[in-house]
């Protein structure tokens, strides 16, 4: 019984998980310091920790962070302006929905980011290329979840609207859109996650922009602790982004 209660304890499990991570870091530190792991390949974790304030100060990390954030913001605006109306369009026409919904699903599976050299030729080595790829990568989930949200509107709500003789426009803005809003937000979140992955990835690949470029530059300089610290910083920034958007999503859910 007592063992069962211990196994059920969330905080104990979280503590155990965190403890294992810390232990793994300590083990790596010892193995690198004793040269069991080649220090020219893996720097000691303490050096990585010390490199974080250095790269924040010397490599202008906050400015780079804001550059990446701006690219994401532009991608988000484009996704909302194009993706949501396309989802509404597919909802409005049964013929278009039947013709293109599966195509949009197939487009979601296409490795769009591989076309980055094509975007480079079209838009040059610029933020436009990065934003365009982020937008293209995030478009399909926004369209599909907007459509899902609209299709999932309860029939009874629409019938009430009809009995009150609401115009199509009023029905859309007063019933369909509020009902689909949580799904639309889920789609925007998914789209932004895809956009972020591709934006940072392309920054790294074309050596331009914010955080992705930072990793590439540090790796090319063979600044090992700096490279690992920059990767850690990007991972932490991504985790923060997922966490914040997941919390917003959870807050929106009861509105349904």
């Amino acid at each position, binding site marked *: 019984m007592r063992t069962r209660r211990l196994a059920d304890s969330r905080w104990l499990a979280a503590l155990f998980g965190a403890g294992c991570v810390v232990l793994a870091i300590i083990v790596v530190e010892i193995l690198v310091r004793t040269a069991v792991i080649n220090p020219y390949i893996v720097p000691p974790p303490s050096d990585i920790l010390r490199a974080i304030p250095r790269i924040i100060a010397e490599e202008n990390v906050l400015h780079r962070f804001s550059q990446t954030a701006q690219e994401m913001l532009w991608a988000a605006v484009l996704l909302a302006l194009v993706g949501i109306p396309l989802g509404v369009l597919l909802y409005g026409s049964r013929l278009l929905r039947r013709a293109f919904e599966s195509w949009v699903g197939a487009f979601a599976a296409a490795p769009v980011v591989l076309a980055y050299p094509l975007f480079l*030729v079209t838009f040059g080595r610029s933020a436009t290329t990065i934003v365009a790829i982020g937008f293209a990568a995030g478009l399909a989930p926004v369209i599909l979840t907007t459509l899902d949200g609209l299709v999932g509107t309860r029939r009874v709500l629409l019938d009430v609207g009809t009995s009150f003789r609401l115009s199509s426009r009023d029905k859309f803005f007063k019933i369909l859109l509020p009902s689909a809003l949580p799904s639309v937000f889920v789609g925007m979140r998914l789209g932004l996650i895809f956009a972020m992955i591709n934006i*940072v990835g392309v920054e*790294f690949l074309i050596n331009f922009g914010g955080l992705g470029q930072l990793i590439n530059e540090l790796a090319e300089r063979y600044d090992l602790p700096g490279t690992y610290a920059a990767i850690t910083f990007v991972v932490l920034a991504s985790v923060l982004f997922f966490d914040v958007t997941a919390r917003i999503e959870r807050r929106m859910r009861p509105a349904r």
Partner: protein
Amino acid sequence: MKATGNIAVSRTSVAWVRIAFVLVVLVVWETVARSGILTHDIVPSLTKIGAALWRLLASGDFWFNLGVTASEIAIAMVIGGVWGLATGLLLGANRFLSRAFEALLLYLGPTPKIIFFPVLIMWFGVGAGSKIAMGVVSCFFPVAIATAAGMRGIDSVLIRVGRSFRATTWQMITRIYLPAMRRPVINGIRLGLGVALIGTLLAETKLSNRGLGYLVIQAYSLFDMPRMYAILLVLFVVAIAANTLIVRHAGNEHGTR
């Protein structure tokens, strides 16, 4: 009878809309290519792209590089898939471990994996090893997360039946858990394949002298746009076909409503 007629008409309409859409895209493309609004190099004519596609498919070079990329992805899928499956089974079977480590997987899963490539080059060299490792890191997370979720979703009656027959751990895994989790696991493998493909190919575009990613970046360096379009076309068709095949196999195709 009338209903069948309606469905037939509807299917025909859908087919016509699709054909019309493709034709409009092709006509607009060709018009732009011939008008010179955009540089010919950016939007080459369809005939040039068709010819490049033909030359590409007829060249031994393409098939060799396709083989290199396919083998890298296959090895990555085996290593990452088995690793992800084992991790997912462990986390799905043990609530304590799931609470301790699954949040890590959920948070690290959607991070951009390509940023780990400089580290993977140092660990596994500039050859195929770092590309395979890139594929492994990419496909591990979706497989592990889907397997853990799938295992938790197994009907408890099935598990109780297995235990009442005194099945061994191995028998429980092979006879109860894996068959009951078929759909989420295949879904995880489908997602894993998609991201492994992207990870491996992006790594090839960054630093490689073989593989389809290398061919794309080579076409870019030579400014051979028809060839680049041809390679991307083949890649997109292969990726979408592989995804559709796995979805059909899992029996959960996203149908039209």
